């Protein structure tokens, strides 16, 4: 075997071994969705593939709902809507934000890159309704009025 062929074969085998190591050490997560944001990309659990997902218009999905909150996702602008449904709005918000991170399997820093609308409907709390409070742990998060 010529010297050139030996070098090429060595490179090929070396890269293959590196590839295999990476493949097994960092297994590819399934059902992931890459969300593009102005601050970079964020990898989240695909809301459409979550078992609790209910389809909405415009290819949207309601992927989490209970007596405290309801969360929708719309791929059109890759935006999330968190509606607080419990009159104890602060406690419901804490639960919603915690579950939001867990359901999408993301960190707080990554969540702050996403386009999230967090608001309270009029029939839940008139005083707090109509505003986007965003996620409370983000720099642009707002607190509820007292």
């Amino acid at each position, binding site marked *: 075997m010529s010297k*050139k*062929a030996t070098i*090429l074969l060595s*490179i*090929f085998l070396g*890269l*293959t071994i*590196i*590839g295999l190591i*990476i*493949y097994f050490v*960092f297994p*590819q997560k399934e059902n*992931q969705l*890459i969300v*593009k*944001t*102005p*601050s*970079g*990309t964020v*990898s989240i659990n695909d809301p459409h593939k979550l078992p609790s997902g*209910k389809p*909405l*218009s*415009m290819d*949207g999905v*309601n992927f989490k709902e209970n007596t405290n909150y*309801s969360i*929708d996702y*719309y791929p*059109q*602008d890759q*935006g*999330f*809507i*968190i*509606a*607080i449904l419990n009159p104890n709005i602060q406690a419901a918000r804490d639960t919603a934000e915690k579950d939001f991170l867990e359901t999408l399997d993301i960190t707080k820093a990554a969540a702050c890159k996403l*386009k999230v*609308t967090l*608001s*309270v*409907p*009029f*029939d*839940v709390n*008139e005083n707090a*309704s*109509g*505003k*986007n409070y965003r996620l409370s742990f983000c720099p642009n998060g707002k607190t509820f009025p007292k």
Partner: protein
Amino acid sequence: MNIKINFKKILFSLFFLVLFLPTFSYATLSAEELVYTPMEEIPGFDRPTSYSGYITAIYKFGLWTIGISAMVMISIGAFMYITSAGNSNSAGKAKGVIVDAISGVILAMISYVLLYTINPALLQISLPDMISGGVTNGISGGSGGSGGSGGTGKCEPITTGPCSVENLKNTCFGTNAEMASAICMKESSGQENKESGDKCQPENFSISLGLFQINLSANNLTGSSCSQQTCATSAAAPMYTGKKKNVYCTKGTNYTSCVDSATNKDCNIQTACALSSNGAHWGKWGANSECGFPN
């Protein structure tokens, strides 16, 4: 003076100059006009309108070029090998051409597979904050302030989903889309399946539904997207008001059909349009007491 012209270097420089010349065009654009359409399309990728799209298209075009070039070189090498007629020197050269072509393809493929395996996001090129942040902030800043349409700061338009200003502009609300979006945000937080806390008896079904929280005991549904339109008397009665809260409804066909229609976003928007005179008058919505839009 003896100047040696190196054609390889000149060709290489020209190639990169042509490839990255559009970078300067993007650089001269302000944040507001970041969308730029190249005069020539990149084969197979139309005309990317963003810088990241341009780089991605060039990268993918490069992969295609490597693949096609390798195929051509393998064919040439094979032809050389066949026509070497037992000449070991020619046959060696032909083998070299084939091996080089195959190794080029393998290297290109491995670089892609390695990056994709580590993190697919590495292959998605996006602009840093410095450039694209300006655009986004500009948009959200503009829609965040509802003062321009008579809002009081308590009623912000929503920027996501069917009630976003962008979507409502294309409906019957037209130029009143910003007010409509703010009312939708205040009433339902932009949730198309939102059921009200106001309930009818005896089984605690919701009276108001959908994006604009249409009160089924007070209003019929209007519009081509509403499969059931008569609701005010047949689904829930008497009319639910702030003072009169004893409303009765039965979970019969009418009520179920009215709920299905009212939670259909198009039907809900069309009904809200009819009730608000295409978004000009919002007096029928309790939420407007805080928004201060025209009654």
